[in-house]
């Protein structure tokens, strides 16, 4: 054992630190217990005794309620109470029927990455009958049965499943599933651009046709087909499940990452402030205390870029900035001490992490959260694939 060269003061400090560790362990256990207790309260929405005595239909109603708050937990509840069989077909039926179910929750569940959820998605899609429907008609049916989630990966999985099913029901219309996939997206975007009042540039039928040149594995789809699809959308927009603002299926917080970071505060004198950062829902929130209910500041990550930087005062730094637009202020805001919400006046956010490892992790997580037209990249990759296929 190496003789320690610690001074008496340092030894005392170590002792204090040991004691502190014990206190921490107690704190941590207490916190875990409390979390479990409150979570239980939320999930049961009532005492546990009641559950056993509940009648079947009340349980079904409870199951639906839980599903609408958190689809996974809802399904679990129904299975545990023998109201639903734990097979993809059964669950798919349950979702397809959708009785009392929130369509956003259905969409969320079907879009999950889990192997099981993907199987349910396929079973769900199989329940749709697309034979002899044109693509717009099929999409109308499909997009009404649930609310398409916002995340690119989820949309990709669901539209891929849709395209496969459509081609299965209508062989020969498209050269490949990719063609069907890309055209479906084009139609969805067409629907939005034609009918959403915020979109100014409305495409014409000719433009829509031109846009889809080469989409059929290098060849063109019949102009008449595309024109019909265009007219169908033009005359009648998709009916999409409403977002009434009460769609709150993300009741529980599930942040991508959280932790202490130092933030360079703007203003006349620049100082570093230690803040608790939470990365969730494509947004970076920060707090003074971990227990603050409302965030002190909000940084929406849309359109932001991130890069590593060297700072003279602090190590492990990175910055959030708007690319290509150096003078534009990041659309962030913060709460002043007196409660006023003011526009942040940063053009850049400079942040310092405690260790290089944490810096790497934060950068990785933030990059994953920043949406930079992920649809476009996916779509572009697919379109390249179908357009570059040689004509036969």
């Amino acid at each position, binding site marked *: 054992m190496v003789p320690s060269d610690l001074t008496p003061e340092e030894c005392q400090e170590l002792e204090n630190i040991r004691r502190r560790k014990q206190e921490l362990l107690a704190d941590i256990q207490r916190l875990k217990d409390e979390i479990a207790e409150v979570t239980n309260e939320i999930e049961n929405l009532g005492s546990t005794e009641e559950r056993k005595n509940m009648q079947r239909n009340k349980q079904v109603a409870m199951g639906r309620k839980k599903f609408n708050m958190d689809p996974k937990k809802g399904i679990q509840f129904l299975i545990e109470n023998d109201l639903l069989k734990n097979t993809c077909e059964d669950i798919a039926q349950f979702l397809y029927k959708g009785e009392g179910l929130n369509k956003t929750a259905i969409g969320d569940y079907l879009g999950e990455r889990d192997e099981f959820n993907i199987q349910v998605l396929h079973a769900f899609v199989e329940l749709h009958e697309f034979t002899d429907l044109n693509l717009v008609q099929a999409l109308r049916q499909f997009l009404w049965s649930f609310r398409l989630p916002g995340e690119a990966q989820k949309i990709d999985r669901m539209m891929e499943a849709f395209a496969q099913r459509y081609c299965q029901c209508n062989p020969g219309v498209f050269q490949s599933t990719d063609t069907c996939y890309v055209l479906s997206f084009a139609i969805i975007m067409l629907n939005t651009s034609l009918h959403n009042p915020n979109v100014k540039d409305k495409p014409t039928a000719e433009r829509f046709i031109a846009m889809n040149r080469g989409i059929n594995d290098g060849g063109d789809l019949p102009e008449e087909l595309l024109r019909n699809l265009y007219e169908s959308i033009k005359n009648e927009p998709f009916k999409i499940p409403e977002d009434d603002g009460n769609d709150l299926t993300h009741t529980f917080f599930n942040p991508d990452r959280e932790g202490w970071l130092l933030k360079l505060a703007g203003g006349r004198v620049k100082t570093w402030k*230690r803040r608790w950062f939470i990365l969730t829902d494509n*947004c970076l929130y920060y707090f003074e205390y*971990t227990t603050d209910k*409302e965030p002190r500041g909000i940084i929406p990550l849309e359109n932001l870029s991130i890069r590593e930087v060297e700072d003279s005062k602090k190590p492990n730094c990175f910055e959030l900035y708007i690319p290509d637009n150096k003078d534009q202020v990041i659309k962030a805001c913060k709460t002043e001490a007196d409660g006023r919400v003011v526009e942040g006046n940063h053009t850049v956010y400079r942040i310092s992490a405690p260790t290089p490892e944490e810096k790497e992790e934060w950068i990785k997580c933030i990059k994953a959260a920043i949406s930079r037209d992920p649809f476009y990249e996916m*779509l572009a990759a697919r379109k390249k694939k179908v357009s570059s296929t040689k004509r036969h």
Partner: protein
Amino acid sequence: GGGSPAAYPPPLHPDVPPNAAPAGVATRLSRRRVSCRDLGRVDCDGWLLKKKDHVGFMAQKWKRCWFVLKGHTLYWYHHPNDEKAAGLINLATYNLESTREQKKKYVFQLSHERYKPFIFAAETLADLSMWVSHLVTAKTKHALAHQPVPHREEDCYSETEAEDPDDESPRQGFPPLDVGCSHNRVAGRGGPAGFQGCAVLWCPSSRPEPGEEDLESLMQCLKQGGVSLIGRQRFLTQEQCRKSFIRRNKNPHVNEKVHAVRALQSTLKAKLAELQALEQLLDDDTLTSEKFTRWKEEHQDLYQELQECWAQRQGQGGGGGDPKAEQSSPGEAAKP
């Protein structure tokens, strides 16, 4: 012999459209007051993107217009059915050049020694070839016909943008050249051979396929409107982000509990991180003074907190104090 100086503005072209003002009275506006229909048989037409001169905040830089080439006049319309052209250029007075644009692959420009250039982008290589070829031919024909090159501004070009009342000096002078912008003169003479030489001069930067560009432009439209693929409002404002954070459930009791859980979980994470830092120190069998000092530097905030906590306890006479000791530090947080 030498060209005669124009005593009055000559007609644009022998095939001047029927409802244009008679020669000598041509005004800017009247030259543009011609619909595609009126132009009759044209040399070339199609969609091109025209770069805007003045771009507002977050507005699109390029406008898609319907272009028509007849004789040596290039007209453009916002829509093929418009009654009058949004602009026109007398090609005799402009030079066709290549150029580079940051987000466009198939670009070319028409430049003037005095006025700002017009910059265009074609959507495909085929379109670019077609336009360049026709423009070169048009200029060649004009040169071969030995027609004088007019000098007055209204004989060179005309456009709505320029007549905007807010816009005092439309095209005087050159804008500062973009870094990395390269210009290549294209000879107006020589016909087809000239064009072939021209093809070599185009060096488009690597950009996505034009087909994708169409989808991209559609996506851009959606983005401009602040809507997602399916038409949902994107999180453009911090207010929406705030609302999304605060309101997790319509049941206020559930909402409150959910926030309580969140605060507990954050606090738990903070404490676990602190535990990890302490264990890194305590579990080190070969701890030296130097290592300890380094640890203190690396965990400045934590060490400071600990010191304050011990100082407090000393003041209180020692003994098991408040294990949370949150008040002194802005770092950790009190249990709710």
